[in-house]
């Protein structure tokens, strides 16, 4: 075995993990750290269900080698809210009926979060939201209610930002 130590911060907590060189970030998150909210499907960066935030930016964790993220900060779906303290995006996804089977939803929410964070205070158009989430496939919803949810959350985040 050719294992080496990886230091990463996941959802604000420091982790030291022994990894093999070929392991992906997805494998480390799911198998070593237990962040099962990060989903697994195509393993070829085609579907988007494995999306996490790497230093705030949405990336496909299934094709990123874990060794490449030494010292980086990762946010998974578990890191943006919990059942008692939902993130505005999580709240809006439930409220707008944007969740069906839910398997793409962690990736979808993190993709949307990355997009909204990159454009602070903005109220994106529906077409801008479409483009932002186009890399994540959802087979259940036809996307309309997901777009509703992102627009709703964007409004609320912009409003609370304006108040502060």
């Amino acid at each position, binding site marked *: 075995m050719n294992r080496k130590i990886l230091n990463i911060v996941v959802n604000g907590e420091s982790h030291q993990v022994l990894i093999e060189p070929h392991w992906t970030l997805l494998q480390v998150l799911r198998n070593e750290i237990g962040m099962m909210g990060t989903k*697994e499907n195509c393993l070829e960066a085609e*579907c988007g269900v494995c999306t996490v935030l790497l230093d705030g930016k949405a990336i496909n964790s299934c094709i990123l080698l874990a060794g490449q993220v030494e010292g980086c900060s990762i946010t998974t779906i578990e890191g943006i809210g919990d059942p008692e303290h939902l993130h505005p995006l999580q709240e809006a996804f*439930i409220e707008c*009926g944007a969740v069906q089977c*839910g*398997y793409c939803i*962690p990736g979808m929410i993190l993709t949307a979060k990355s997009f909204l964070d990159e454009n602070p205070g903005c109220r994106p158009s529906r077409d801008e939201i479409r483009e932002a989430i186009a890399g994540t496939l959802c087979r259940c919803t*036809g996307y*309309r209610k997901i777009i509703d949810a992102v627009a709703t959350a964007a409004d609320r985040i912009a409003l609370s930002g304006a108040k502060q």
Partner: protein
Amino acid sequence: MSAHTHRVAGHRLPRRDGVGKVTGKHVYAADFKLPGMLYGRVLRSTRAHALIKKIDASRAAAIAGVRGIITSADIPQIRYGTAVRDTTVFATDRALFIGHAIAAVAATSLEIAERALAAIEVEYEDLPPLFDPEEALKSDIRIHPDWETYKALPIISRNRNIAGQARIRVGDAEAAFAKAHKVYEHRFSTALQHPGYTEPRVATADWDANGIVTVWCNTQLPFDTQTTLAEILDLPAARVRVTVPGIGGGFGGKLRIGVEHFAALLARKTARPVKVMSTSEEELTAALPRQASIVLLKTAVDKEGHLLARSGRIIVDCGAYAGSGPGTAAIALQVMAGPYKPGALAFESVAVYTNKVHSGSFRAPAGPMANFAMECQIDMIAKDLGLDPLEMRLRNVVKEGDPGPSGEIHRSVSIEECLRKAADAIGWHDRNPEPGRGKGIACSWWMTTGGSSGVYVKINPDGSATLVSGAVEIGTGAITGAAQILAEELSLDLTDVNVTGVDTQAAPFDYGAQGSRTTFSVGNACLAAAAELRRQMFELAAEQLEAPIEDMKLQDKHVVAGNKSISIAELARISRLAGGGLIAHGTAISPAPAYDPTRVQNHPLPVWNTPSYHAHAVDLSVDQATGKVTINRYVVAQDVGYAINPTYIEGQIEGGVAQGIGQALSEEIVYQDGRVMNANLTDYKMPTAMDVPEIESIIVECRSAAGPYGAKGVGEPPCIEPPAAIGNAIAAATGCWPNSLPMTAEKIAAAMQVQHS
């Protein structure tokens, strides 16, 4: 009780599993793991049709970390299958398609399992393959040389490469053709389509000390999977426990055994828990996609466009095993009849074997294929007769009390309302607002599949209820809908109803999350359970309140009799001390309606339960140079009987149409010489957020007699009409009908070029 007086049913309440799903807490089958678990992988055939001369796994077995290898030689020699028992776990003496399972390996890591697969040597001797279903009908080559020895449902009629053949005959079609004003004949074809769920098929199996195997998996049909696994493992069903932690989509692709048998067999061989998960490549080469089909239709009309007689044949390409093919092909006959007065009919379905992946029951099996042919032909005829396509449909649609194709009577009919509402919403009066832009319409009907449901409901000492059902929540919100019905009947809030996970050992039987039936059937079972719980609570309350039962009602979580009342929670506590708790078993079954059996031959689903009616209208533009289609607007008017939760009904419509748009315009598992050319999610083109318009839903409520509060099945219909509606709109925009799915830009551009030259 009317909808307006309902407190819980009929309202846009959030689903019970929503918080778990948005926070990553919801556990899916893919997330499930056990200590010491091994990883299983499947070796698949690289030949489309070949004798297997030798399998040598000795090199693979010697790899460190490999814990077990199984082939056909290591397992009970069982053939299984729904209509025809033609299927084996592994290829036996011959491989029947590229992707056919040959062997399976369990190892301490996926990487080792993959290395082991590469080390297994298989010696093949190629046989002549059959890829074209029409050729397979004529050929002397037999894909299953021993087909006559296979067991099948008695209703299924088979012959050589034909896995099933059904007919519907009404009146004398030939005589009607002879005296018709005009007769039209057309040919259509549709492509193989993957269900596209985002969680691959996955199973983890473990055997316990009592010889019971538990399989944690993402099946839509836990009880069917239990039965099939018991057959494959040669065990009594009681020694197979199937449980579904959570499921990331199914759409009919997870009805039948996927990888559960590999996991269970490898776990038996290694005496360790084993997890097997399909790869994307396996999903696109060896899953259970929607069959490709060929539809031939001949239709006779009078001068006014009334349908006098129709004959037709659908050829469904099953692939290497019958799978759902015979039933799917047969259902196409009712879809071809459509929501129209039947006239004379002579329809035939043929399900045929080829050396390709065997197929399944993707959402509304046969619906979009048969509807594409039938509804495009209606437009072609209307155009030739100089009729408005909407008007031609309105002249032919069924009315209340009209007979259907099987001689059943259409009840709570809403097809005219659906057509008019969809047409009005799309602005039908202006069908060609500008060059290259057109509007299309299509309509259909669809069954609410029957089958029985049982639920246990218990009342907890805090006054909440626990719903135990064997039905899987596949994402539709169906179980939330059933819980709304239960809460309504027990005067509870939706949040008072807790739903347990599905476990065949503990839950009562359910026919499964299929056929637009879950809310309908589980909802009916909840009505029955609630009635029984009311009886139990009223009896107990009669002692406590000293009031007569006939004066009692449930109100705001209390049993109320005049000015006396006692809370449900208190009754549950009393019952726990005195009577073992408040618990009820509710059951439901929808008997099939009466029909005329002389009309229907060799058909596994001869008559439809509680049909729904719907119409779709689309406004689109076609790029005159490239043929690229842009959908401007898409409207659905769907009769759901009673909308138990309008939000999730819209969700079904929006999602179903998106899948239908995919089938219409871009999705195809492309085969060349028996090999899939696009076995990845970049080249297999499912619609992204950029490809789907804002689908507009018009919910029509024409109450059924059989459904809870009058509900009808909702889930499958939305994917039926998109190919036809879009095809008709493309024709309105360009003047030409692409008659094969998917209607890619390339095909449309070619058709426009032919027209211009």
